């Protein structure tokens, strides 16, 4: 039955950069595929399509969930059949390039590196044979695209970690990693929005609460936005943490 949907998607623009294929994920969702791999251009197509589909406010479309190079469209099969939906999405993709969508933003996240907030900073420095200051300079010197949000609420899959910072996971994961901890695992860097067990090398911590279900929106970034880390001293961490708790 994948084939029935694939046929109808031929209405999509055959221009290589906007070709879209569809996969069936049960009786209530289609997965639109915009390419393969971890690639900012593909992820940007996903972000734009996601924004365009949401802007349609189509009564049959219940939710759009983007990831690296795919997005899930959850639909009500009583209101639209999958062939009509894939043809609608194919048409949308064909005009995605010219369409106006909200710009992606870069969110700055303050981090206190090292010390009690980043107990593995020394280990990351030793592994990469760099000075602590150099680790902090490199880590806070670039911005990281949010390819997807998942795993736990608010957790960002970030791209673009400098190869000089790649460090293997801890041999033994910690039973409890504090919320806001910033870590490195292999070629990835990320922030733990909630306290949880974890095996990432912790290099710092943010005093901001990244995921607050009572806040609207609960997360201050969206898939396709970018994050930049700003180093702050321990005194500023404590001050911001007090503000956040007020």
């Amino acid at each position, binding site marked *: 039955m994948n084939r029935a949907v694939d046929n109808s998607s031929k209405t999509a623009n055959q221009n290589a950069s906007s070709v879209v294929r569809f996969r069936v994920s*049960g009786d209530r969702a289609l997965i639109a595929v915009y390419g393969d791999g971890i690639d900012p251009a593909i992820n940007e197509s996903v972000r734009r399509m996601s924004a365009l589909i949401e802007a349609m406010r189509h009564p049959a479309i219940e939710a759009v969930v983007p990831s690296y*190079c795919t997005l*899930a469209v959850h639909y009500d099969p009583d209101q639209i059949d999958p062939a009509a939906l894939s043809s609608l999405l194919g048409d949308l993709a064909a005009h995605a390039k010219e369409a106006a969508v909200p710009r992606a933003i870069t969110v700055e996240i303050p981090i206190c590196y090292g010390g009690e907030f980043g107990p593995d900073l020394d280990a990351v420095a030793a592994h990469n044979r760099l000075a602590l200051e150099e680790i902090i300079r490199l880590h806070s010197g670039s911005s990281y695209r949010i390819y997807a949000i998942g795993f736990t609420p608010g957790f960002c899959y970030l791209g673009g970690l400098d190869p000089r910072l790649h460090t293997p996971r801890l041999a033994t994961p910690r039973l409890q990693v504090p919320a806001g901890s910033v870590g490195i695992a292999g070629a990835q860097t990320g922030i733990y929005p909630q306290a949880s067990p974890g095996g990432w090398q912790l290099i710092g911590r943010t005093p901001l609460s990244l995921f607050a*279900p009572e806040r609207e*929106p609960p997360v201050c970034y*969206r898939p396709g936005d970018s994050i930049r880390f700003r180093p702050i001293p321990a005194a500023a961490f404590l001050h911001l943490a007090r503000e956040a708790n007020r």
Partner: protein
Amino acid sequence: MKPGLRILSPGLGLTVQDLGRFGARHLGVPPSGAVDDYAHRVANWLVGNEAACATLEMTMGRARIEWLSEADIAVTGAAMGLRLNGMGRRQWISLRVRPGDVLELGVAENGCRGYLALTGGIGVPEVMGSRSTCLGGKLGGLGGRFLAAGDLLPGGCQPLLPEPRRLPWTPVYPEHHLLRAIAGPHDHLFQSWIDRFFAATFTISPQSDRMGCRLSGPAVERDAAAPAGIVSEPVVPGNVQIPADGQPILLLREQTLGGYTSIATVLSADLWRIGQARPGDTVRFVRVSLDTGQRLAGQWRDFLGQTERLLAAGLG
């Protein structure tokens, strides 16, 4: 809202659940919600609630609950040897409770998850549009956690039923589960194995929880040319993921993205069945086309609507 009940003993796993939280999957917030939404809905309808009211999901039973206000309650789902003040009572029927009454549930004898509804629903605050407990995100329910002895839950704030309601039939759960499933989203990577997958019998592993139901059986192999892993893609409840060891994981309601390929996806209309599968039970997937699957899912929704009207009309 006034306290409706106190947990005396939480048994083997007790959470607040409703039909789920659907507005923020793009932010990594999973749907959560009752795994057996059929039993959850019927429990609500039996006490005069909307299907969306929150119930208690009781995994494998053994809970003790004290009632603090007058209410109509109903226990559905797994058969758990229900007792009210020490007297044996039936499930799938509404019961009137008064302050001081104690409800006891034994270990599940048939099925895996019981649902307890009370008049007006469990009145914990809504979080992002739902009262469901999301254990991974520590949100919803009571502090986003399993309930514990001593917990007080608000509830019971709606007119009581003029007369008791009962479901005119009693669901009995099999030990062998047939789950209708649509191939995909990654069936193209399993072309040499897909027929064997739909013919195979798998066993429910004890390492199953609200995240996923782990299955053991013949190791499902991907095609020789297929990549071992994928970059994370959105997942839906019912995806049957095939990790590196070939032992399938049937995803339930606590995940939004996944890095494993899925050979098939269980129909939304059959997902409740897996909520009653016990470790050691067996499962076979029955292949249906997307067309047929959507027709069957539509029929199931019609059946749910008829059941709701039947119970509301008091014909039970």
